[in-house]
């Protein structure tokens, strides 16, 4: 469905701080894939995700959606087919707007916005139903400002907003990393429910190897801007944390052994 071809991205190109973030990545994302992406800090996981979201244009390489070249599509245009949840719970929602206003904005993703009233009473019902599925009591707080919610509540709301209009591709960028363990677990559970119920094609970046193994049908490991492991299906189910660590050392050598703590 989405395919990246020899995607190259430099940051600070031509300066002393030049970083090669994506080193010619090619990746085919198939309809219904739930891909977990792992790798050490600075490996290029988030850059890969942002490359799909259109946050930047690649220095070379192309990206296709159903065979159409969308390399030049800006971020807001790609939002037609992507739903996104960010690491920072504050980034996915508007603090000064109410819950229903935030949801109304998400409800128009991929559609033209005109001079109709933004929050209509018919939509409120739908928003309430969707919110009640979260089990956080937000369905009774439609008119509360989102700034009043906790980080976990905001992330749950962002998750809901990203999928309110069914996205062809759901992009999750370490969306549980900034939350406390209990809330992180809830958000992860919510992610699993929504992705399974809607059969969403998903790309999820994570720092947590266990998460990466538990969720999804496919796992890729990124290192220095390249995909060094890409397993799916039965092969992925057999994979253990030890296997992944072994794989890491094979490419990284012992100099990176400090990553062991970060990753397990």
């Amino acid at each position, binding site marked *: 469905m989405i395919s990246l071809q020899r995607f190259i991205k430099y940051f600070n190109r031509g300066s002393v701080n030049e970083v090669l973030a994506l080193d010619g990545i090619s990746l085919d994302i198939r309809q219904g894939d739930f891909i977990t992406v792992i790798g050490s800090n600075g490996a290029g996981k988030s850059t890969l995700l942002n490359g799909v979201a259109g946050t930047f244009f690649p220095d070379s390489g192309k990206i296709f959606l159903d065979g159409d070249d969308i390399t030049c599509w800006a971020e*807001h245009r790609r939002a037609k087919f992507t739903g996104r949840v960010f690491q920072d719970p504050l980034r996915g929602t508007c603090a000064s707007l109410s819950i229903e206003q935030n949801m109304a*904005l998400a409800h*128009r993703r991929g559609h033209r916005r005109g001079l109709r009233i*933004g929050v209509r009473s018919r939509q409120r019902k739908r928003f309430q139903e969707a919110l009640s599925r979260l089990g956080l009591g937000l369905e009774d707080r439609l008119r509360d400002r989102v700034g009043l919610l906790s980080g976990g509540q905001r992330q749950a709301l962002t998750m809901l907003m990203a999928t309110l209009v069914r996205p062809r591709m759901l992009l999750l960028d370490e969306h549980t990393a900034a939350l406390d363990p209990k809330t992180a677990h809830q958000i992860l559970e919510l992610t699993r429910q929504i992705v399974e119920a809607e059969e969403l094609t998903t790309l999820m970046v994570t720092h947590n190897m266990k998460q990466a193994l538990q969720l999804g049908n496919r796992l890729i490991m990124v290192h220095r801007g390249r995909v060094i492991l890409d397993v799916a299906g039965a092969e992925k189910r057999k994979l253990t944390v030890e296997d992944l660590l072994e794989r890491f050392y094979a490419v990284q050598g012992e100099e990176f052994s400090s990553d062991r703590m970060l990753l397990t």
Partner: protein
Amino acid sequence: MNIYALIGAIEQGFVFGIMALGVYLTFRVLDFPDLTVDGSLPLGAAVSAVSITNGINPFLSLLLAMGAGFLAGTVTALLNTKLKILHLLASILTMIALYSINIRIMGGPNVSLLGSDTVLDTFIKAGLVGYLAAPVIFGIIALLVTGLIIWFLHTELGLSMLATGDNPQMITSQGVNTHTIIIMGVGLSNALVALSGALVAQNQGAADVNMGVGTIVAGLASVIVGETIFGDRTIARACLAAVLGSVVYRIAIALALGMQWGRFSFTPSDLNLITALLVVGALTAPRIKSRFQAVVSRR
């Protein structure tokens, strides 16, 4: 202060309240400090005055003025979004460019409207008492415009505009082109400012290239005074607060000008200083207050 001075202050408050609403749109809604207004206020005045002296209907001249203001705003927004010039600098560039353009439009530094019919004359002929015409008409127009802006900010597009000022990353990921919204918003803001300028010119009987000096500071003062007195909990309230803040601000100015200590009294040329001090005070008051409360609670 006598009753005429009060009526005068209310009339000024409403007519500049439309401008304050424009400043609210950029400064608060879009988080885009826009100094274009110092140029787009006289632009509106110039376009309206020149239209009227050329025999165009005064009501139609208001629409032309708004169109010109909208264009001026789009220039600032384009400089900022497409050419990546800092918003503050972009607006200053448009503002100084407008100085030359306004003189070109008027064919000189000012245009007199003496002997020409204005919007107000239409109502005076219909039987409205002369000295009440301006405050009543301006009040009605200001409240109408406020109502329209409140409605707009509740539409799909208006919500996108609020979100663009609050969290551009969020609204981009919901499929909105923030550049388009900024261009539209800054344009709309300057259309309101130009409308205000056009009405001022029709009221005082002349358009002058220097009439825009200090507009942004007066606008900010109105928005901040309004928020402090009337609150900004809802969008409707914040919009009304900007307009009513402008009325309060003009009354305060009239009071200040009427004061006298021995041989010292304020002159109109002191206005900019007073306004600047007022804005500094209003901007820092919440911080000083919270620090003071922190000190008190620590004891």
